[in-house]
């Protein structure tokens, strides 16, 4: 997030796109509701009718994958009406002319043809966003998990910059991260091309700095993304896989394809709390300690690095992840010895500018938000205050592209996937909780009553869903939260493996993120 969670309350307008906030980020939804109750305007754009749509001044259901068109349409209106922040654009950004030229083509009529959004609604939501500063834009996986994920994100930034909302309190472009520590994992270099603080591996100076600190030469080649790993496994180029705290057997697109790839591996190691679907097929399982059993830090979606404190010692022979990695490294010939995670943190802070001013003592209970470059720096509640990281904010002129797969005669329904409030990801932790299990015991498919009538199915009937990749069965849940023509599957349930249907071939060319949010399927009633 460019801004902080608490600041959302002080926004003049909150625009939510591609985030089912009450279900997936409930405590951020709390801020949204508070903003609304204090008088902010609320706009929700989502292919589904989410809980927050109820409270919105304008709520639209744009067609799956049509985000760029919708956002370009909003910018078209802003420029036409003169609602854009001219001084801000002139002094702080570049690339405006190309953007103006591009969005001039996105007339409300054209946008309606692509997105299905009524021109009146489009104009009203645009007016609310552009004329109630500061506007806080929130998005989540509904923006990123597309073949055009990067374009979608850039379009969100274009819109916010056009109104001068980036670098101001209460505004910003705020991606809501999927896990408590996914921001921290990325900050720590959990990506194939960077080390900590997004320092590129390809940069020789960076490699030199780290080689010196670690007393070992670092390879210059970047690693593989998971999307690239799967073909490499199939081609036999990747022979061993070490999975830490992930359950790709359930979470990766095109289940059949991925399983086929897994079988080609010579060796699979999984480090997990529980025997997840992936751990069950591993050659070696390393027992990781749970959050209650380890010390360390998490960095959350608002860049706030916070301490976690061990409540109990690890049970059985499980170990904290850092200890397992140290032992493994030592066994493989590079001696890695630390007495505690604080030592590791201090080493990292010494090598990473955005964390340089942090220490366990300073983080305390409240945490610190990066960038925090020195020991007296109070942390940064919102980014890009006086200038952007790269100097000037860049507008990207982006044309709309269709998702990789659209419904056709054979596969007439849009399928989108996501989460429900009671479960987390593949359910490895939540499905074993009796209180959460009571909420939702198994998978289901959300279908609009009108579609159900056409399919001649009723609430609770079993249906077979098929895509070009495979078939699964699921019980029907009738709901008006999905629009007719679209069905929704939650991703948490191993017995209803949603990702049998999704497409591994369709991913964003840059970010390599798979298009989980759009596939085409057919549905028919299961006849026994």
């Amino acid at each position, binding site marked *: 997030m460019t801004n902080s969670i608490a600041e959302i309350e002080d926004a003049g307008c909150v625009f939510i796109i591609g985030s089912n906030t*009450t*279900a997936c980020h*409930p*405590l951020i*939804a*709390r801020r949204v*509701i*508070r903003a*609304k*109750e*204090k*008088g902010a305007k609320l706009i929700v754009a989502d292919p589904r009718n989410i*809980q927050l749509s*109820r*409270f919105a001044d304008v709520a639209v259901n744009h067609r799956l994958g049509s985000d760029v068109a919708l956002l370009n349409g909003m910018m078209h209106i802003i420029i036409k009406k003169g609602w854009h922040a001219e001084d801000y654009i002139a002094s702080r950004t570049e690339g405006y002319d190309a953007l103006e030229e591009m969005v001039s083509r996105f007339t409300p009529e054209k946008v309606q043809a692509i997105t299905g959004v009524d021109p009146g609604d489009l104009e009203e939501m645009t007016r609310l966003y552009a004329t109630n500063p500061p506007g806080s834009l929130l998005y989540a996986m509904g923006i990123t998990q597309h073949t055009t994920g990067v374009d979608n994100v850039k379009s969100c930034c274009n819109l916010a910059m056009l109104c001068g909302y980036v670098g101001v309190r209460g505004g910003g472009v705020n991606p809501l991260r999927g896990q408590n520590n996914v921001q921290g994992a990325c900050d720590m270099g959990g990506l194939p091309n960077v080390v900590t603080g997004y320092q590129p591996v390809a940069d020789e100076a960076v490699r030199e700095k780290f080689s010196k600190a670690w007393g070992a030469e670092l390879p210059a080649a970047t690693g593989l993304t998971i999307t690239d790993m799967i073909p490499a496994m199939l081609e036999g180029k990747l022979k061993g896989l070490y999975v830490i705290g992930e359950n790709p057997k359930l979470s990766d697109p095109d289940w059949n394809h991925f399983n086929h790839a897994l079988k080609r591996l010579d060796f699979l190691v999984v480090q997990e709390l529980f025997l997840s679907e992936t751990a069950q097929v591993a050659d070696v399982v390393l027992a990781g300690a749970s959050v209650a059993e380890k010390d360390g830090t998490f960095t959350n979606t608002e860049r706030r690095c916070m301490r976690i404190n061990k*409540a*109990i010692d690890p049970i059985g022979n499980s170990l904290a992840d850092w200890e397992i990695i140290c032992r493994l490294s030592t066994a493989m010939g590079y001696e890695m010895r630390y007495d505690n995670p604080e030592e590791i943190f201090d080493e990292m802070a010494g090598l990473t500018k955005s964390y340089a001013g942090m220490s366990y003592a300073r983080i*305390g*209970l*409240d945490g610190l938000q990066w960038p925090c470059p020195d020991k007296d720096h109070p942390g940064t509640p919102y980014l890009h205050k006086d200038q952007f990281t790269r100097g000037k904010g860049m507008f990207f002129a982006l044309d709309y592209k269709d998702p990789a797969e659209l419904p056709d005669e054979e596969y007439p329904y849009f399928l989108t996937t996501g989460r*429900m*409030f*009671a479960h987390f990801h593949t359910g490895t932790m939540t499905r074993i909780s009796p*209180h959460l299990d*009571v*909420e*939702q015991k198994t998978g*289901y498919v959300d279908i609009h009553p009108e579609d159900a009538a056409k399919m001649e199915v009723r609430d609770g009937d079993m249906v077979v869903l098929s895509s070009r990749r495979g078939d699964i069965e699921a019980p029907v*849940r009738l*709901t008006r*939260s999905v629009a007719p023509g679209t069905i929704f599957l939650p991703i948490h349930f191993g017995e209803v493996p949603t990702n049998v249907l999704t497409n591994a071939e369709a991913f964003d060319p840059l970010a390599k993120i798979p298009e989980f949010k759009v596939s085409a399927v057919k549905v028919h009633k299961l006849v026994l």
Partner: protein
Amino acid sequence: MKEQIKSWLEQGTVDVFLGYREVDHHPIPWCFTQEAIEEVDDLVVSPARYSLEKIATHMAAEDPDIRIGMLARDCNNRALNVLYVWNQLRPEQVVTVEANCCPSPLKEHADCSYLEPGTVGAYKKAVGIDNHLRLEAVEAYGPEEGRNRWMYEFQKCIKCYGCRNICPVCFCRECSLDHDDLVGTGPLLPDIPIFHLVRAVHMAGRCIDCGLCEDACPMDIPLRLLYQKVNRIAMDLFDYRTGTSGDQPPFSILGDRVTLEPKPIQPVTGAEA
């Protein structure tokens, strides 16, 4: 006070003392023990409130003979009374150190910084319910207005169960809110108003108006007013003052006799030193 608590722990008057300890400038609910008696020096009495008696109930469920010392405001004491009445704790096993308390229809003269009115947004005032209203004002809404306002508030619910989990007098082993024949499960929006009404009905004659549920509710739903309403009905119909009466409620939705076992809904966590 600290000296007294230390001597209780040293002499074994109590096995544990539940209070608050200052950690990084935050008062944190804390379980003081003889083994770490020096921690008592960091004990703080502040406006911070937590249902310490809920922790006590969980402990007693694990070890029925445990003797517990507790920092208690008036709301904690009312909750303790209810827990004694419902056989969740025994009065002999609890000793308290008194601290300042909060105003409530159940006790008029008191102060509690938590209950100082925060700001309630204009939109909420217009369509929802101002959490600081008096119950009479809420009862005075016409049928349609009342319905609209309550349903606006309930529609915000994200079913986090914070209200149940914090409540000092929610101790049932099996919770009706988890029962899918009583309250629909699955999607958000939850089953409204059933979810809230089922909980409200179970609070009649039990809720001691501490307001912790409302404090915990991330959506600022005026839960305290809702439970004041059920208690008001219990008071009007039966002249029963929850939390001060030593008798079981004359009227109980749970059944006429209390047969529940002292079992918490989840194992003890959080208070461990």
